[in-house]
C-alpha cells in the first residue's frame, strides 16, 4: 500500500490516539507528524511494513512515551482540555456517574505509561494480539494487564480514591 493511502486512512486514528495520550492537540499533531515522517522514510528506504496499523500505533506510542517522560504536567493538561459530554440521564444519576467518570479520568492519567497506552488501544478496539505487538508484551499477557488496569480504575472511581 502506498504512503498517501496509508496517510489518509490512518491519520485520524493515530491523531485521536496521540491526543488521548498527550492531552493536547498541538502535541498530538506533532506526534502524528513525526510518526508519518518515519513511515515516509521507512517506505522510501524500501522497508517492508506488513501491518501498517500496528506499525503506526507502535511508532506513535514510542514517540508519546519519549515525549511524555518529560511532561510532569500531563495530568493537569488532560483534566484541563477534556471536553465534557452531555449525558441524558436523570440529574442525580448523572451527577453520580459524572463524578465517577471524572475520578476515572484522573485515575487514567495516573496510571503507568504502559497501562495507559493499553487502555487507549483498547478504546480503539484493537485485537489483543495487536495490542501486545504495540506495547511489546506477549499476547497472553494483554488480558491480564487489561483486567487489572480496568479493575484498578473501577475501584478507584467507585471509592473516590485517587491513584
Amino acid at each position, binding site marked *: 500500500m502506498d504512503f498517501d493511502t496509508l496517510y489518509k486512512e490512518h491519520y485520524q486514528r493515530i491523531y*485521536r490516539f496521540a491526543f*488521548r495520550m498527550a492531552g493536547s492537540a498541538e502535541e498530538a499533531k*506533532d506526534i502524528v507528524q513525526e510518526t508519518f515522517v518515519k513511515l515516509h522514510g521507512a517506505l522510501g528506504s524500501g522497508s517492508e511494513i506488513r501491518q501498517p496499523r500496528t506499525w503506526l500505533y507502535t511508532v506513535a506510542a514510542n514517540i508519546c512515551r519519549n515525549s511524555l517522560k518529560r511532561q510532569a504536567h500531563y495530568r493537569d493538561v488532560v483534566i484541563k482540555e477534556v471536553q465534557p459530554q452531555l449525558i441524558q440521564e436523570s440529574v442525580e444519576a448523572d451527577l453520580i456517574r459524572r463524578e465517577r467518570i471524572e475520578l476515572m479520568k484522573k485515575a487514567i492519567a495516573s496510571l503507568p505509561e504502559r497501562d495507559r497506552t493499553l487502555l487507549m488501544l483498547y478504546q480503539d478496539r484493537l485485537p489483543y494480539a495487536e495490542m501486545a505487538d504495540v506495547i511489546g508484551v506477549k499476547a497472553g499477557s494483554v488480558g491480564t494487564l487489561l483486567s487489572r488496569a480496568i479493575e484498578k480504575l473501577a475501584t478507584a472511581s467507585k471509592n473516590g480514591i485517587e491513584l
Partner: protein
Amino acid sequence: MSCLDREVILKYLDRELPNAEEQAVREHLDVCSKCQEMLEEVTGDIADLRSAISELEPESIPVPVFDPSPLKSASTTGVSSRSTRSRLTPTYWIRLVASLAAAAAVVIVTLPWFEYENDQTNSTSPEEIAFEQGYLHVNPNTAFHNRQLVITIIDTEKNLSEQVVTSTEQPNSTPNRPSFDQSEQNSSM
C-alpha cells in the same frame, strides 16, 4: 467449570477466548448467578472506562497535507533532541566551523571600529557610513534575509578600506527525510 474471574469475563466480552472455552463460559454463565453479577460488573466498568476515555477525544480535524520535512515545532521535547542528533553530520560541522570563523573575522575587523566610535559624539555604524557613501553594494535588509555577512572596514577618515560580502546561502529545497530508527521499533511487523 469453576467460577470465572474478571480476566476470563473480559476476554469473553471481547471475543478473545477460543471457541471451545467461549462455549464453556457461556454455559457456566447460564447457571451461575454469581458469575452473572460479575459479568454485569465488568460490563459496567468497561462502559465507564470507555465513557471516560471518550471524553479525552479531540475534536475532529481535517487531515492536513503531508509535509515530509522533520518536525520544526519544539512542543515535543523528545523530538527536538532526535532532530538535533540527525543534524550532526560532517557537513553540519564544516558549516559550523565556517560560521564560527566568519564570526571571529567580524569581531576582529570591528574591534578597531569600537575604538573609533568611542571618540565620536555622534557615532554611526560602518554599514551606515558605507551606505551613505554609496560603498555598500548590498542592501543591509537583503543581506540579512540572505544570511550574508557584510564585513566593512572604514578608517578614521571615514574612507572605506575594505568590504567583503559572503556568498548568498540558498535555502535547502530538498526535504530532509529521516531514516527509520530501527532501534526504537520491531521492524518485523
